[in-house]
């Protein structure tokens, strides 16, 4: 068994969801999704473009803040990442606050582009490393962006999966709910049930999330770390710098 960091497993599992796509965009404050996109690009043999917000070198937008959104609306972006202060079992995300709006008890920064990108980008991967009952709730206090829409609403996009520090859920669009897909090494189904306060489907057999292989770790600690360090120097140094044996 090789030694790897928890972040490296998450990066690897997200990168696998991006295989074969043409253009992946990464929003602000997203080092793990950013590393995953850059890893998928390394594996794509030149087939994938990646736009990392906040980067100068790995970002080819030249028309200001609106270009990402216009690009998404035209179907020019295949995958994106969103998180949430709260995420519920229908895939609704809350980036605004906890408690009664507008005088939220806990106020988050705001919805950013979520209310729009969630509708227009085909494969939106929800990512939140922390996984507990306060975050994964039955119903969000404020819907920044809904997980599903009525049939008459123009919506080529939506949730594809939810990746946390404990497991991967796939989103089942027709059933409008999550299904547990894999559990990360060292975690258990009981723990996932205990720490998740929304209902989800559990297939009969649940696999363990595969650990990153040696080739992946070489890519991550080499070219991916180097590309990511431009935008996320602290993260790159912490995660890919000195390897601590687990």
């Amino acid at each position, binding site marked *: 068994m090789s030694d790897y960091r928890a972040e490296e497993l998450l990066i690897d599992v997200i990168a696998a969801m991006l295989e074969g796509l043409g253009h992946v965009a990464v929003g*602000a404050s997203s080092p793990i999704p950013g590393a995953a996109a850059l890893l998928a690009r390394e594996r794509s043999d030149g087939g994938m473009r990646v736009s990392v917000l906040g980067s100068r070198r790995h970002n080819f937008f030249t028309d*200001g803040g609106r270009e990402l*959104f216009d690009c998404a609306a035209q179907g020019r972006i295949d995958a994106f990442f969103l998180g949430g202060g709260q995420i519920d079992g229908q895939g609704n995300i809350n980036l605004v606050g906890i408690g009664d709006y*507008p005088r939220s008890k806990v106020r988050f920064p*705001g919805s950013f*582009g979520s209310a729009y*990108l969630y*509708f227009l980008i085909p494969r939106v991967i929800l990512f939140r490393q922390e996984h507990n009952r306060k975050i994964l709730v039955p119903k969000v206090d404020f819907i920044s*962006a809904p997980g599903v829409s009525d049939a008459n609403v123009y919506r080529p996009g939506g949730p594809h999966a939810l990746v946390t520090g404990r497991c991967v859920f796939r989103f089942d669009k027709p059933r409008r709910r999550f299904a547990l897909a894999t559990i990360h090494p060292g975690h258990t189904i009981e723990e996932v049930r205990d720490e998740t306060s929304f209902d989800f489907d559990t297939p009969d057999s649940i696999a363990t999330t595969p650990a990153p292989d040696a080739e992946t770790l070489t890519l991550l600690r080499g070219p991916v770390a180097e590309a990511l360090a431009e935008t996320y120097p602290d993260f790159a140094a912490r995660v890919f710098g000195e390897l601590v044996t687990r």
Partner: protein
Amino acid sequence: MTRHLSTVRDLASMIDSGARVAVPPDYSGCAMAAVRELIRRGVRDLHLIGVPQAGFQADMLIGAGCVGTVESAAVTIGEYGPAPRFVAAVKAGAVRVLDSTCPAIHAGLQAAEKGIPFMPLRGILGSDLVAHRDDWRVIDNPFGEDDPIVALPAIRPDVALFHAGVADRFGNVWIGVRRELMLMAHAAAATLVTVEEIVDDDLLADERTAAGTIPALYVTALAKAPMGARPIGLGERYPADDGHLRRYVELARTEEGFRRYLDEFVLAGEVPA
């Protein structure tokens, strides 16, 4: 004609209490020296528009009691954590928040830029943003069938305020790829800019600079303000003063600490260059 003002104070004096002021996010050139002048003057009831979000300048202006309404996709100081004075003002009900989403801010400004009353935008339907914005409408696509779409009113700021690297003596301002600043200038009734330097060349004379230049046509007034974005950074010219910002965040956790910050770096002193 673009007015060339000799001080940042003169520039800031063109912003009245109650004005609708569009500002960029922390990574796009913020006129922090002008923001400190607004705080010193004690302007009130600004309607701050984050294009599409706002950072330290919003937090400071809100904490200093200068803001009545903040209209933005987010108020965020990124890796430094939650924006402390914004969060406190929301909890106290001391500021009205018009929660938006990035493309809605861009689209509203684009409507103003085109001189049309509204802009339709995909997405957003079913979001609580729509439920809480009584100025937004869900309409039927007039060219489709059973196709609901959100209509957003034009956002027409009284003032666009930002900081850039270079202007020329004619009042043209170079912004490079930061074209949200161009959008702000097109949409606003007046555009006020602080710059690092004013050069003798004509930025419009060379296509290589002209493409990234806001023509003087849109620039109401300019003032030179070296290190005018400090304590935050300006593109590749200078980085943020990380130590200073961490100190701000620490102090601004409490009302009293924030007052101490204002005394030291705004009212009695200045932010170090």
